[in-house]
C-alpha cells in the first residue's frame, strides 16, 4: 500500500436533526478546524482537500466541493470530491489516505458531511430515472426484505434487533457528539415504537442528522511532528458489485467478504474477533450488526446474532462494536462512513473519551452503501505497521 499514512487529527461537529445556526460551509469548517486543532496545524499546512458526501440531491447543491473550497482554505490547492453512495465517508478516507500512500502529499485534509435538514433524504433516494420502476421508498424499504431473509436463514430470535438498538444508544450516552441520546433507553422503549418496515421499528433505524467529520492524514515525517499520538493505517480496501443480478447474495454480499479478506491480508489479521480490539461498523438498521458480524468474519455464517445476544459486542464485551453509538445514533449520511473511520482512529489514539475501550491498539472502521454493494474499510493501529 505504499508509504505509511497516519491520522493525526480528528474533528467532529455535534450531530443534530437541524443545525440551523450554520450554513453548509460553516458546518464543514467547524469539523475541519477541530481536526486541524487536534493536529496542531492550520489550513496553511494542508496540501490537499478530499471531500465526500452522499447524493447532491440531499441538499440540492450540485458538486458542492466547488463552493466549499473557500471555506476549507483550499484556494490554490487540489480539491477532490468522492461519491460512492452510503459508503462514501469510508471511500473518502481511503482516497485521502491514498494520496499519502502514493507519496503525492504530506498532509491531507479529508472532510465528509451531510446537512439533511436542507432537504428530504427519503425523497431524494426514491426518485428514479424514467426507464426504471421505483421499487422502494427510502433505504429501509430496500433493506427490510434482506433482513427478513437473514432472520429466516439464521433462525435468529425476534429480539436481536432490539438488543442492538439499545446497546448502541447506551453507548451514545457516552459520546458528546452523538445525535440520539436517549436517557434510560430500554428494550421496552424500542419495542413500543411503531413498525416502519417489518421487522424494523422506529428506534431500530438511524436518525437523519446534520453534521460533518474531518481528519488530517499525514505521511510518516509529518506524523512524527504531530503533538498527539497518531493512528497508523494498517490496511484499506474498497469493493463494489452490481446491485441487481440473479443469484446475488444480498444478505451476505461477496463484495463485503472480499473487501474484508483484502483488508485483513494487508493488516495481518487472521482472527478478527481475537486480534481487533474494537470495531466501528456501518449499522444503519439494528439487524445489520449480526449480518455484518458474519460478513466480516467475526464468526461463522448464521452465528452473528449469538454474539450480539451474548453481549460480545457491548462495551464490556470481548469485541465492542460501535462504542461511539454508531450510525444508529448519528447519521449525517455522507459523513457516517468517515465517522466510523475517525472513531476507530480515536480509539487507537486513546482519545475516545468516555467511550474509550481500554488499551485499544487495533480497530476496524467500516462503511457500506448502495444496495449493500459498495464497501470501504480500514484498520488503524497505535503502532506503525
Amino acid at each position, binding site marked *: *500500500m*505504499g508509504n505509511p499514512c497516519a491520522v493525526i487529527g480528528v474533528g467532529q461537529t455535534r450531530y443534530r436533526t437541524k443545525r440551523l445556526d450554520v450554513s453548509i460551509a460553516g458546518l464543514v469548517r467547524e469539523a475541519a478546524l477541530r481536526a486541524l486543532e487536534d493536529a496542531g496545524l492550520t489550513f496553511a499546512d494542508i*496540501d490537499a482537500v478530499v471531500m465526500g458526501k*452522499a*447524493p*447532491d*440531491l440531499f*441538499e*440540492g*447543491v*450540485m*458538486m*458542492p*466541493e*466547488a*463552493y*466549499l*473550497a*473557500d471555506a476549507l482554505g*483550499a*484556494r*490554490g*490547492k*487540489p*480539491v*477532490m*470530491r*468522492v*461519491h*460512492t*453512495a452510503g459508503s462514501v465517508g469510508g471511500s473518502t478516507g481511503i*482516497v485521502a489516505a*491514498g*494520496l499519502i*500512500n*502514493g*507519496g*503525492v*502529499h504530506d498532509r491531507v485534509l479529508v472532510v465528509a458531511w451531510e446537512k439533511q435538514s436542507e432537504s428530504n433524504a427519503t425523497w*431524494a*433516494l426514491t*426518485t*428514479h*430515472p424514467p*426507464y426504471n420502476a421505483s421499487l422502494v421508498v427510502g433505504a429501509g424499504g430496500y433493506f427490510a426484505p434482506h433482513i427478513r431473509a437473514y432472520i429466516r436463514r439464521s433462525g435468529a430470535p425476534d429480539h436481536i434487533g432490539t438488543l442492538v438498538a439499545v446497546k448502541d444508544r447506551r453507548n451514545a450516552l457516552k459520546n458528546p457528539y452523538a445525535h440520539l441520546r436517549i436517557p434510560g433507553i430500554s428494550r421496552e422503549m424500542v419495542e413500543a415504537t411503531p413498525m416502519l418496515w417489518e421487522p424494523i421499528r422506529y428506534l431500530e433505524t438511524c436518525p437523519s442528522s446534520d453534521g460533518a467529520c474531518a481528519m488530517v492524514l499525514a505521511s510518516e515525517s509529518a506524523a512524527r511532528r504531530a503533538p498527539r499520538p497518531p493512528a497508523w493505517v494498517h490496511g484499506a*480496501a*474498497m*469493493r*463494489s*458489485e*452490481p*446491485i441487481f*443480478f440473479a443469484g446475488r447474495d444480498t444478505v451476505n454480499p*461477496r463484495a463485503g467478504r472480499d*473487501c474484508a479478506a*483484502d483488508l485483513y491480508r494487508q493488516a495481518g489479521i487472521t482472527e478478527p474477533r481475537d486480534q481487533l480490539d474494537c470495531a466501528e461498523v456501518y449499522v444503519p438498521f439494528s439487524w445489520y450488526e449480526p449480518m455484518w458480524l458474519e460478513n466480516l468474519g467475526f464468526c461463522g455464517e448464521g452465528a452473528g446474532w449469538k454474539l450480539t445476544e451474548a453481549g460480545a459486542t457491548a462495551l464490556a464485551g470481548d469485541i465492542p462494536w460501535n462504542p461511539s453509538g454508531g450510525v444508529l445514533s448519528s447519521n449525517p449520511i455522507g459523513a457516517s462512513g468517515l465517522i466510523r473511520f475517525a472513531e476507530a482512529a480515536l480509539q487507537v489514539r486513546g482519545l475516545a473519551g468516555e467511550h474509550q475501550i481500554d488499551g485499544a491498539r487495533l480497530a476496524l472502521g467500516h462503511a457500506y452503501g*448502495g*444496495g449493500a*454493494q*459498495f464497501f470501504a474499510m480500514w484498520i488503524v493501529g497505535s503502532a506503525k505497521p
Partner: protein
Amino acid sequence: MSRGRPTTAGPGRDVAVVAFTQTDLTTEYSGLSEVELLAPVIHEIKERTGLSRFGFTCSGSCDYLAGAPFSFVSALDAVGAWPPISESHVEMDAAWAMYEAWVRLQHGDIDTALVYGFGKSSQGDLRQIMTLQLDPYYLAPLGPDQVSLAALQAQAYLRRCGAKEDDLRAVAARSRAAGLANPHAPDLPEPAADDPYEVAPLRSYDVAPITDGAAAIVLAAGDTARELCDRPAWIRGIDHRADAHALGARDLSRAESARLAGERAGATRAGATRSAGIEVAELHAQFSHEELMLCEALGLSDDVTINPSGGALAANPVMATGLIRIGEAAARIFDGTARRALGHAAAGPCLQQNLVCVLEGDVDG
C-alpha cells in the same frame, strides 16, 4: 532535459495512458441509457488491451445530469463488476477519476486501472442545471446561469488583453473545422459573424454544444504499459488546483488555478512564459475565450497545436469532456504525431478548478 515532474516531492512510478475509447458524441439524445452508452466503450477498451480485469476502476459522473441519485450505480452494470472489483467514483469530470487512479497506481501493488466517464446533457437544461453548483446562499438564489457567468469572464478577459470578438470567432471556427475531421464529433456549421449573441460577447458558436457521450481510458504502470501499448503515453506530470469559488474574490480575467496546475505538472517552467516542449494541447474550454485564457495560463505559444480533436467547442459530453481531452492528447502520442502532449480538464464556474496532465512518448516510439 526536464522530465516535467511536479515541483513538490512526488511519486516516482512510471504510469502511462495505454488505451482510449469514446462513443460517438451526439448533440441530441440518441435513445440510449447511461449503461447502453457506456457498455460498448468498456467492451472496446477491454478488447483493445486484452484485459478483462483491472487493479482499480474509477469513474466520474454527475447525478444532476441524470436527474436522479446514484447514476454511477447502474453504470457499474456496464463494467462487469463480478467478481467484485476494487472501485471508486468521483462526482467530478472523469479526468479527476483518472487522477485518483494514477495516485492508486503509485502505491505499487497494482499495475492497471480502468477509468470512465459519461454524461447526457441533452436530457435537461444544462445552463440552468449548472446554476445549482453555485454558492447556495449568496449566488445561486440570484439565478445566474453558466453562459452569463462565462460572458462576465469573457468581458473581463477581453478588456484586459485587448482581444476582440473576431479572436473568439477564430477559436470557434478552428474548433468546428477540427471537429469535422474528428469521426466522433458532430458536424457543426462554420461560425458566421452575424450569429446571434447568447450573452454578449459570447455568440452561439462560442458556447460548447449540448452533447451526450462516454469515454474510457486504461492506465498501466511500467513494463505492463509497454506490453499493452506500442507507444504508451507516459504521465510525466499531473496536478490539479482549485481557485476561490466566489467570483468577486478572484481576478476573473485570469485562470490562476490553471497556471498553478500547469506549473506543478511541469507543463510550464516556473516563472517562464514558454511551454516546456509541449507540441499538442487538448484544452477543456467550453467557451471560446476560455481557450485563450488557458493558453495564456499554461504558457502555450503559437507553435503548439491546440485541440486537434476540435475540443469541447466541437463536442462537450459533460463529465467525460475532460477525460476525452487527456485521451485525445494520448492518442496523438499513440499515433506518433506528437512526442509531448498536454491534456487539460476544468470544473466549477469560470474555470474555478483545473487539471493538467503532461504526456510523453518514448524517444524511439
